[in-house]
């Protein structure tokens, strides 16, 4: 059991409280799902609940956290706390220390004071529970995001603790991988484990969660059973993304008719693996297209062909009637803007303004100040112009990444999973921004795992599986 009583916390060198007078009780065998906007304090709550905040972080702390009735400050350190609590962080890659799946789990088991026989027994049962038996000799680098997340969870379960905290365990996972994680967690709950899960995917977790906690500005703004919490309409919009009406805006007017992208018999192989297999596709100017499919279905490989990051093994890709084989990446960047899944892969400048200016300078666009202001205004970030990009919340960083690309004024804007890690309100804001860009004449292509985004926002949905297009349909209202 974990109990937080009137806990407040301020990170070093900041003035705003990350947690403010927060009280919460996690009873044995129960499952709490914590949700809320980015920057609301959800990860800080996880760090507080497992004592990390009190032992490893500076800053101003107040209130009491107890684990099974014992004050976390009374523990000698994290290694002692680790005997009572396991935590899985949101970045699975950073939690892989060893070079095979089995080694990762075995190494965690070795330090629990168990007999060799008991270790072997537990190892087999954890591999089985987390569906990792067939992958036990694989290297973490060769696993998908969902598999990595299961390895991180398995290594934490190896500790054998009754309380497990999970920070956004499914944020970058597709539907199938998310369902697998949920099913593992449901089994853990059946075994009597106590779970504290930070999540945005309410639809997947509503059956599992006994209590929903909604956090905003370091405080709990709603707590109760899913039914109780969702009675408030404002809270409901945070918990459940609502994309209703986004597609219903006025019909876009393309500057010129005709295809923006023409793909003909495109095949692409990474070494010996065929990632795209004879794909043909035409995207017209001014269309809003969603590309859906599981991880590894070839979505990202396909869109990387649009701006020349990859060139076809066979077949052709034409952007505005120019074959990509005859263009450089820099030339294609003028026509196709690509926003990657993780915005942090692009930020390096000292201010939001300079970050947007980088792309403009690369393309030699005239009157950059006007363009920068227009792009930041478009995504609602004009007020943050002089801030350091990495200080922004995840939702704001995602919108800044869009602004960086929009400012370059490409005809086609491609986004890879633009709503990853965002709450309902932020996700809607991002999708509404994209719709606005379409209405201004841009062609918008969105890769998403989320079927609802595709169905509610896009005009056309292309489904991919194993490197092929398996369906291509117009969305209906």
């Amino acid at each position, binding site marked *: 059991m974990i109990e937080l009583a009137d806990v407040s916390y301020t990170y070093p060198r900041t003035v705003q409280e990350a947690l403010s007078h927060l009280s919460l009780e996690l009873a044995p065998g129960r499952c709490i799902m914590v949700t809320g906007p980015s920057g609301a304090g959800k990860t800080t709550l996880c760090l507080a609940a497992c004592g*990390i905040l009190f032992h490893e972080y500076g800053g101003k702390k107040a209130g009491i956290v107890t684990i099974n009735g014992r004050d976390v400050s009374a523990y000698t*350190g*994290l*290694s002692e*706390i*680790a*005997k009572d*609590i*396991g*935590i899985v*962080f949101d*970045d699975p*890659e*950073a*939690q*892989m*220390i*060893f*070079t*095979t799946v089995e*080694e990762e789990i*075995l*190494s*965690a088991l*070795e*330090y*629990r*004071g*168990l*007999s*060799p026989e008991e270790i*072997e027994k537990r190892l087999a049962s954890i591999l089985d529970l987390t569906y990792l038996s067939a992958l036990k*000799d*694989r*290297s973490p*680098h060769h696993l998908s995001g969902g598999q990595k997340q299961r390895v991180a969870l398995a*290594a*934490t379960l190896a*500790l054998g603790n009754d309380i497990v905290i999970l920070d956004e365990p499914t944020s970058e996972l597709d539907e199938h991988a998310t369902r697998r994680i949920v099913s593992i967690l449901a089994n853990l709950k059946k075994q009597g484990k106590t779970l504290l899960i930070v999540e945005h995917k309410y639809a997947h977790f509503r059956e599992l969660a006994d209590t929903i906690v909604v956090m905003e500005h370091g405080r709990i703004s709603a707590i109760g059973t899913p039914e109780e919490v969702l009675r408030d309409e404002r809270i409901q919009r945070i918990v459940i993304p609502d994309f209703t009406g986004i597609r219903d805006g006025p019909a876009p007017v393309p500057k010129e008719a005709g295809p923006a992208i023409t793909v003909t018999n495109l095949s692409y192989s990474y070494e010996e693996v065929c990632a795209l297999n004879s794909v043909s596709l035409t995207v017209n100017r001014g269309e809003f297209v969603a590309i859906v499919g599981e991880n590894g279905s070839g979505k990202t490989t396909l869109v990387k062909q649009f*701006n020349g*990051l990859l060139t076809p093994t066979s077949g052709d890709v034409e952007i505005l009637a120019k074959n990509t084989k005859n263009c450089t*990446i*820099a030339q294609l*960047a*003028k026509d196709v*803007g690509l926003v*990657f899944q993780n915005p*942090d*892969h*692009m*930020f*390096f400048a000292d201010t939001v303004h300079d970050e947007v200016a*980088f*792309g403009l300078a*690369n*393309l030699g666009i005239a009157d950059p100040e006007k363009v920068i202001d227009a792009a930041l205004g478009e995504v609602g970030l004009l007020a943050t112009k002089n801030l350091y990009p*990495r200080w922004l919340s995840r939702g704001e960083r995602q919108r800044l990444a869009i602004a*960086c*690309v929009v400012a*370059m004024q490409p005809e086609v804007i491609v986004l890879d999973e633009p709503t990853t890690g965002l709450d309902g309100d932020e996700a809607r804001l991002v999708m509404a921004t994209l719709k606005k860009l379409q209405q201004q004449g841009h062609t918008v292509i969105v890769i998403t795992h989320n079927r609802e985004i595709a169905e509610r926002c896009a005009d056309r949905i292309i489904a991919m599986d194993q490197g092929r297009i398996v369906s291509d349909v117009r969305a209906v209202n």
Partner: protein
Amino acid sequence: MAEILQYVHKDGFFHRLHPFSKILFIIVASIICILVTSIPVLLLMVVAMLVLAFIGHLHREVIQQLKLVLVMSVVFVVITVLTMPGGDTIGYLIPQSVPVIGGAIPITTGAISVGLVLALRFMVLIFAFQLFLISTQPRDLVHAMEKLRMPIDYILMFIIALRFIPTLQIEGQRIHEAQLARGYNPGTGMIGKVKSVAPIVIPLVSNALLRSNVLGLTIDMRGYRTGVRTRIRERTFSGGDYAMISGLCGTAALFGIVAFALPALVF
């Protein structure tokens, strides 16, 4: 993408050896190649490493790094030609026909010979360490280093430094692609190249620092630093180890005898 110095899951001669045997292999190979100055003997050692890689079914992984090793070897030879002239002059980097600076950098037999020795030593060391690292599971490495009474923090630092090489490789590739998509130009000339490093290095370092925080917490929360370890699936010495140790002792003894009796052969 080829993963540099990462454990490869296989069942070969090197994989079955105890880490101590492999550490001894590295020590013997390193000492001999550092003492030897004879190019034919060093060449023989490079060939021996490749033969051992073949026997251990690790030749593919070793050959993958050959390009990098050859480039570095050429760099060594060029640096010695530039900095250590000696012996007979066999030509000039800048032809004598060029006015004013013509004939300024002589290519000498002494410099080439020193450069080749350095390059071959580098090859032997790289191949020996690669054979050790790609055939040893980090867990076995931890056990061996623990037995050598190395502090656990240093052991973990070593393991993590190795483990995160491919992670940084992949991350660097993603950042590079993200910047290329923004019309990033990797720059020309020395100043251009230095300036163009910022859009890649700053996100790489910032993300790595964030990741190292999570990694540190994970290590603590799994109790690696303070827990008492149960000894399980530990490597024991087998026939292969005894063969390897005998071979290494024999090689070291032979080297000692030749060095004293016929020093001209190896020095």
